[in-house]
Structures are given as structure tokens and as C-alpha cells.
């Protein structure tokens, strides 16, 4: 993947323009097909971390003949180290609502939901105000689209799109088998577009400024900008909108404290990149971690030399052990085994070679777990154990 040469700060997402009514009404005058084509040509990919092409998702749902359809905004932002969606919802919520309404117009959905993370309850009063305003506008303009908020209850797994829908249906938050995908049978078994908060805001940008403006940013396969939640050992933690395709080296120059040992890209389910690989790593969507590109939901955690990588991994695994929904074997038992396993190696109860058995276990988890949670535990585990093996043992 090509990398851009330097870090480019951009300001689209939080640009406060107060023109959502104009954008909405002018967009709704265009033909759905034309809008879908525009979205596809922007090459926008989902910003929750999985990177599914947004235009295609909307297209598939639009093509379904079902009468009842839904749009869901996934605001269950639960990935450790991510806090961008909260900021979007508190600063530019109307962009999200507008994008949902446009999505409803394109796909034929009349109902939208915001699945709000349990811990974000404090956003409710303001959000409800904006939704009221939005509803008033809809009534004035005869736009048949309603948005409600569904409160999550604090389970990480409910950020997984099908577990989220189960939870909305009043069931236990457990991921479903796929297929069928949400575009075929989502919420209440009906075709559903489910997008991350940030993804929706990008569609707003695209419909406002045109796909080309978005496409011209970023690099091949990774177009546009992305919000990054920067935390850890950095002098300037916060949220930054950056062009995709930057090298991790550039990122660390900008945000590191001069002693950066490793960066966790994409939260606990992402990859840990050690200093020696900063140069080769770029932030974008193509491929897996080969030292080349790192897809991400935007969490960037920096660790300096004072941090023990064993403790970091231990912390992640405790998190996964607890947050696995527990239904599928590889994830439920696998997470427990990984956590107990590294502790046993550290204490000398298991030989160092046991780490290799655990690495094979993460491979099995990646191949066989039912959903993204169990599949991606391998990411942080293998990237930490392979790069910091001695810290695991001694």
C-alpha cells in the first residue's frame, strides 16, 4: 500500500456548518441510484474497524424487496481506547441524523435507531433535543423517517452488529450466524443498514462536498479521512482527524513522547506494533498485519519504555475473558486459556514453549470463532507475544 509522506490533519467531521437542513433537502432531491453511485465512487469503508464498503452495504439493502427496513447507527463504542463517536455525538449529532435520513431515503427504511453505549447515557438529554428538532423538521417537510435511541447496557459484545440487533430485540446479546447478513435479515429479521457513527458522518461529508473531494484524500484502498483516538504515553492525547495512509513512524513523530516503545493500533482487538516496525506500518485497510497496513477503528494507544508488555497483554486478555459473550467454544474457553497460560508461563509453571501452543490456539480462534471478537483476539496476542516474547517469560 502506498503511504502518504506526511501526516495531514483535516477538518471535515467536526466542522460546524449548521446547514444540515439544506444538505438534507438538496440530497433528497437527487435519485437514490445516483446517490448510491456517488457513495460507491467515494470508496468509503466502514469506520468501526471492519472496513466493509459502505456504498455496497447501502446498495444491497436498497435492492431488497422487503417493505420494512431499518437504519441503525452503531454508537456502542466499546473498543478500549476509542472515544471518537462520543465526541461526534456531542458535537455534531445532526450530521449523524441527516446521514441516517439520507440512508433511509436511499434504502427505503422508515425507521432509524441509534444504539447508544450504556456508559454514554449522559449524552441522552442533548441527543434527544436534537432528535426532537429533527423530527420537527421531518414533520414540516413531510419526510417519513423516525429516529429513536436504544440504550445499550454495557456489554462489549453488543458492538458486534448482530449481537447488537439481538440485544435490541430484547434477547441476550450474542452474535448470530452469518449468513444471513444484516443487509438481508437484520433487526427483526428485516434488511438493515448498520453503520458506525463516524461512517455516517463521512457520508454526510460525501453528499455535501461530493465523492471526489473525499476520494482525493487518503491513499489507494484507503480513501478519505479518519478520526483517531490518541491515548497512552503521549503529550497530546485527544481526537484527531487525519488522512488515511499515514505511516506509523509519522504518527509517532507527531504524537509520541520521544520514548515510544510500541503502538497499539485498533484497540485491544487490533495490533501492537513495536518501534522497529513503525517505518513499515501504515494505517489503512488493505491486507492483514504484514508490517504494511493496519485497519483500525481509530484507537491509537502509545506505550513508552516504562510499560510492561506482559501487563498490557494481561490487561487485554482479562478484558476479553470477561467480555466474550461465552457462547462459542474457541472464544469462551480460548480467552481463559490465553490469560491463564501467559500467567503460568510468567510464573514458570509452564515452559516458554507453551507460548507457541497458545499462538496456535489464537490461530484456531481466528479460524473458528463465531464473530469478530474471538477472531481478533489473535491480533493483539500474536503481535505482542511475537514481538515481546522475552517480556512474557522473564
Amino acid at each position, binding site marked *: 500500500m502506498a503511504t502518504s509522506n506526511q501526516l495531514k490533519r483535516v477538518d471535515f467531521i467536526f466542522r460546524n456548518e449548521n446547514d444540515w437542513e439544506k444538505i438534507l433537502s438538496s440530497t433528497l432531491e437527487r435519485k437514490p441510484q445516483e446517490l448510491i453511485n456517488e457513495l460507491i465512487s467515494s470508496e468509503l469503508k466502514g469506520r468501526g474497524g471492519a472496513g466493509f464498503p459502505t456504498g455496497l452495504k447501502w446498495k444491497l439493502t436498497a435492492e431488497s424487496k422487503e417493505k420494512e427496513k431499518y437504519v441503525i447507527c452503531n454508537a456502542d463504542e466499546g473498543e478500549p481506547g476509542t472515544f471518537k463517536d462520543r465526541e461526534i455525538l456531542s458535537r455534531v449529532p445532526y450530521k449523524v441524523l441527516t446521514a441516517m435520513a439520507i440512508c433511509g431515503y436511499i434504502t427505503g427504511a422508515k425507521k432509524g435507531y441509534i444504539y447508544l453505549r450504556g456508559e454514554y447515557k449522559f449524552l441522552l438529554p442533548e441527543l434527544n433535543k436534537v432528535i426532537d428538532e429533527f423530527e420537527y423538521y421531518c414533520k414540516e417537510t413531510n419526510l417519513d423517517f423516525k429516529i429513536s435511541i436504544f440504550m445499550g447496557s454495557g456489554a462489549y459484545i453488543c458492538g458486534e452488529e448482530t449481537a447488537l440487533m439481538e440485544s435490541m430485540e430484547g434477547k441476550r446479546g450474542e452474535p448470530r450466524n452469518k449468513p444471513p447478513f444484516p443487509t438481508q435479515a437484520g433487526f427483526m429479521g428485516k434488511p438493515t443498514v448498520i453503520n458506525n457513527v463516524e461512517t455516517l458522518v463521512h457520508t454526510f461529508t460525501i453528499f455535501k462536498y461530493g465523492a471526489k473531494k473525499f476520494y482525493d484524500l487518503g491513499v489507494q484502498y484507503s480513501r478519505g479521512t479518519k478520526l483517531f483516538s490518541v491515548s497512552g504515553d503521549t503529550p497530546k492525547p485527544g481526537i484527531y482527524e487525519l488522512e488515511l495512509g499515514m505511516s506509523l513512524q509519522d504518527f509517532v513523530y507527531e504524537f509520541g513522547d520521544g520514548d515510544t516503545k510500541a503502538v497499539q493500533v485498533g484497540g485491544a482487538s487490533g495490533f501492537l506494533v513495536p518501534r522497529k516496525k513503525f517505518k513499515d506500518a501504515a494505517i489503512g485497510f488493505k491486507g492483514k498485519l504484514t508490517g504494511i497496513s493496519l485497519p483500525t477503528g481509530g484507537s491509537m494507544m502509545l506505550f513508552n519504555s516504562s510499560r510492561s508488555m506482559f501487563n498490557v497483554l494481561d490487561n487485554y486478555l482479562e478484558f476479553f475473558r470477561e467480555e466474550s459473550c*461465552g457462547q462459542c467454544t474457541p472464544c469462551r474457553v480460548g*480467552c481463559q486459556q490465553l490469560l*491463564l497460560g501467559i500467567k503460568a508461563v510468567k510464573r514458570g509453571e509452564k515452559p516458554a514453549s507453551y507460548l507457541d501452543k497458545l499462538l496456535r490456539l489464537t490461530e484456531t480462534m481466528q479460524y473458528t470463532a463465531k464473530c469478530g471478537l474471538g*477472531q481478533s483476539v489473535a491480533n493483539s496476542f500474536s503481535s505482542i507475544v511475537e514481538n515481546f516474547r522475552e517480556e512474557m517469560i522473564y
Partner: protein
Amino acid sequence: MSKKVNITINGFPVEIATGKTILEAAEEQGITIPTLCHHKDLCVAGNCRVCVVEVAGQNRLSAACATPCEEGMEILTNSLKVRNSRKQIIELLLAEHNADCTKCYRNGNCELQTLASEYKIMTQDFIELVPLKHFSIDAYSPSIIKDDSKCIRCQRCVRTCAELQGVNALTVAHKGDKMKITTFFEKAMRDVVCTNCGQCVNHCPTGALVERNYIEEVWEAIANPNKHVVVQTAPAVRVGLGEELGLKPGKSVTGKMVAALKRLGFDSVLDTDFTADLTIMEEGTELLTRLKKALVDNDKSVALPMATSCSPGWIKYIEHMFPEHLNNLSTCKSPQQMFGALAKTYYANARNIKPEDIVSVSIMPCTAKKYEAFRPEMHDSGYRDVDYVLTTRELAILIKQAGLDFNKLEPAKYDRLMGESSGAGVIFGATGGVMEAALRTAYEIVTGREVPFENLNIIPVRGSDGIREASIKIENPVEEWAFLDGVELKCAVAHGLINAKSVMESVKAGTADYHFIEFMACPGGCLGGGGQPIPTNPEIRRKRAEAIYAEDEGLPIRKSHDNPEIKKLYKDFLKEPLGEVSHHLLHTKYTKRERY
């Protein structure tokens, strides 16, 4: 849609009907893909992951049970990647499982054990989780024992309780490492809405849910020279028992079973079918009496439709879920309890044995019968009417322990006094059987003629549909029942509590215009009971049903009221149906229960 898709399985091209899963496609080709959470009675869960297969072009493996075949798929069911992953998943399950197999009730019939053996898991490299957790055993129920340390979280029991039974006594709680199968507020099984039907036991792949067994107690009673041990065998046991003893499903083993019971040392081997016939006499008369009160006397207090009361799982269900409809239940005890009450009165008198010296054992296809025998009201003989209830599976264990070569046994006949039965008693074991038996008798009482069905086979009430309806028009009745002339007697049959629930909802709403409804807690009726051999599935139940109806056809007496021992019983002891003795010994009351 009968479209086909072309795929390859392990390199061999095959054509598969659209919509079939990889698992079904492989099965068609004679390839077994191991499964644990999958069960043909239940919806797809896809959570154990042992059925993973490789689909060319995909890095991740797919769960065969949950993935439909698509055109052009190249599937590998046994690649190195598949085998290694599968093996590791089995190892993970074993690490979480109390794998003390020699001390397990399901030793020898455990799906996890079989899989571990197939994959030759000889070592345990992973850290054993069982000692680190505080698992408890719920052994408070007289029917079912739940041991969480043996649970593999496949959720088959949860799906069974929800989908087949609509009871939802078992649910999933917590997440991650604490995820477990439990009950409302983690109460004991005996304290929740559990109906003791035992379908969870039947569907559990391991020993996490088993029946409470009374094997040692029965051996002890048999060995006691001062005790006279009588045993009764329920209708459905004879068509299931063979499966536990090496025979294929669908084989009736009545004679061999009786022979085996005699060799085990029971003093008298008798038949629950006898009291099934008796139930028909009592329940049929009760129905006609209710109809008379309702239609002639215009008595508004009579509850119609009348519902059968043979299935103790159903009884506990209605007590919890529709307590306002207990009046609709027939007051008749189940055949087991009628037998128990008679064993320590009528039988004891006739054989001149002191009732306190009688130990009454019953062999049932059912775990709820254990609870039923345990009910405080079931002491009408002055003693506990039925002392020990064994399931079909426990009987097989007795036979194996005694070292009997079951297949070599010469068939024997039931002992007399309470050993004779009609075909109508036998079909109690299948869904619709009680209805059919009741109609054979009631119609004849009312009209003086046999039911107008060829060979007495009332086909409309048979079958496997969850809810079936039938009606029979009464014409030219005898004088006593003249008021029924022209009345269309409307009946319904429901099996599996989820179906019972929907029928009861229509009864509650007042939209059900039936006169008589047969309810059975278990899918297929008693032949699919929670105490029957494991495994169970629709195919096995179909075969057991065929065997039951064949047994009925083969019997010389087909109608309960023709059973000479029943006639004798009324002549010598009971006098008349619904008479005073009957009322005391054969009828009962029900208890309103809370849902929580």
C-alpha cells in the same frame, strides 16, 4: 424451490438442493461431520464450532451446521487445518469439562467422550478450568440432576426448553468465563417453572443433565426377602428399551422386557397398560358426565374442554402457566398413579399381601413421573402409591448389570391381576393415543357401535403435527345418551408443551370450541419422553410410533372396555366408573403454582 447448487466436497463434485447446509450436504454424501450443539429437533446455534469445515478461498473456517451451500463452493471436511482446529476445540471443551468419565452417569453415551475418543485426545496441555471454578450440583429435584461442571454450554437444553417446550426454565446467564446455563435467579430446578419433562436430559450431549436414578434403591428392595416388589411398565417403554440394548429404533420388545424383569427378581411383572385401560373407563365416563351436565343440565360450572391428565409434565406446566384452568383437567390420576393406588389396595387384598410389604416400582419413559410419584397427594392407598420410578434408560442399566443377554431371552407374558391390557392401552405411548383409545370406548358407550373407522384405527388423531384436530359426529345414540344425538364431538391433540401452550391460549381466549383435548408434554408423546433412550430425533420417534401402532393392531383386544381384567376390577372392587372407591383412589386434585 427445487433448484440445485453444484459444489465439491473433498474434491468430489456433488449436486445439492438449494438451501441445504454444508452439514446436510455432507450427510447426504455419507460424510459425518462431528457436531455437539447441533440437534435435529432444534434450531441451529453454531456455537460449539466442532463442525467447522474449510471453504476454498476463505481464510476462516465455516460452521457446517450454520452455513448454506452456495454454487461453486469447494468444501474440505477433513483438511489438516480443519482437523487441527477441531482437535483444539475439543481440547478446549475438555479443559472446561469435568472429564472424570468413569464416575459419570453418561459414561459410554456421551457425545463429548465419543468425540474425544475419535480424535484421540490423549493429553491435556491446556489448563484445567474445572478446579478453578466453584461448580455446584443441583440435586434437589426428584427428577433431574444438573451438574454444571459437565456442561459444555452448547445450549441444547436451553433451546429444548424454549423451542420444544416453551417453558424457558433453563436460560443462559452471565457472559465470558462466567457464562452458564441456569434458571431464573439461579434457583434450584425444583423451585422454578421446570416441568421435570426431562427433554433437556434427552437432548444433553454430556452428563450435565441426567435423571435422578433409583437403581440402588430398587436393587435393595428386590434383595429384601420381606418385600413383595411389583413392577409396572409404561406403554412407551417397550418400543424404546431395545435401543439401549443394541437394537435398532422401532423394535417392540414387550415379551423380552417382561422376561428380563422376571429374571431381575421382581415378584410380579405387571402392565401400566392395564391402568391405561382403566384411565379410559374413568376419563371417558368423566367426559360424558361433563357433557351431560353442560348440555342437558346447563350447568355453567362444568369446565369444557376437558383436558387429559396422564402426562405429569403437562400437569406441572398447566399448574404453573394456566392455574386458572385447572378445572379443565380431568380429575383422573395418570395410569402410573392409578396403578400405584391399586397395587397397595386391590392387588394387596387379592394376593393377600400386607400393603406395607409391597414395594411398587414403575418403569416409565419419563422423568416427570419421578416427581409425580413424589407428590404429597399421591398417598391414597395409605402408603406412598408408587415407591420408585425408573426410566427406560435405568431399566436398561438394571438389565446390563444383571448380565442378561437381552436378545437371547425368550419372550414372556405379564403376570395376572393387573397385567392384561388392550391395544387401546398400548397406544397411550404415542401422541393422539389417549384420544384414540378414549374415542374407541366413549363412542361405543354412547352409540352401542364401534367407532366408524376402518379396523378401529382413528387415523386423523395420529401423526406428528404438533396440534391436530378431529371431530366425530354422534348419530343414533343409545337411550341413555340420547341428548348427544347429532352432536359433533370436537377433539384436539397437542404434544410438546410449546403446542400445548398455543392450544391453552386459545382455550383461555375462549376461541377453542373443543370438547376434549389430549395434552402430552413431550414431542411424540410418551415414546419421545424424557426418560427414553438417548439420542432422540424425529426419525427415531416416528419409528417408535410405528412400533406402537403395530403392537396395537397385533393385540386381540383393542378396546379398553373389553379388557376382562378391567371388567373384573369393576365387578370385584370399584363397582362403577367414578364411583366412591374410584373417587378415593383414582382421582386427584391439582395445585395452583406461581411462575416465579
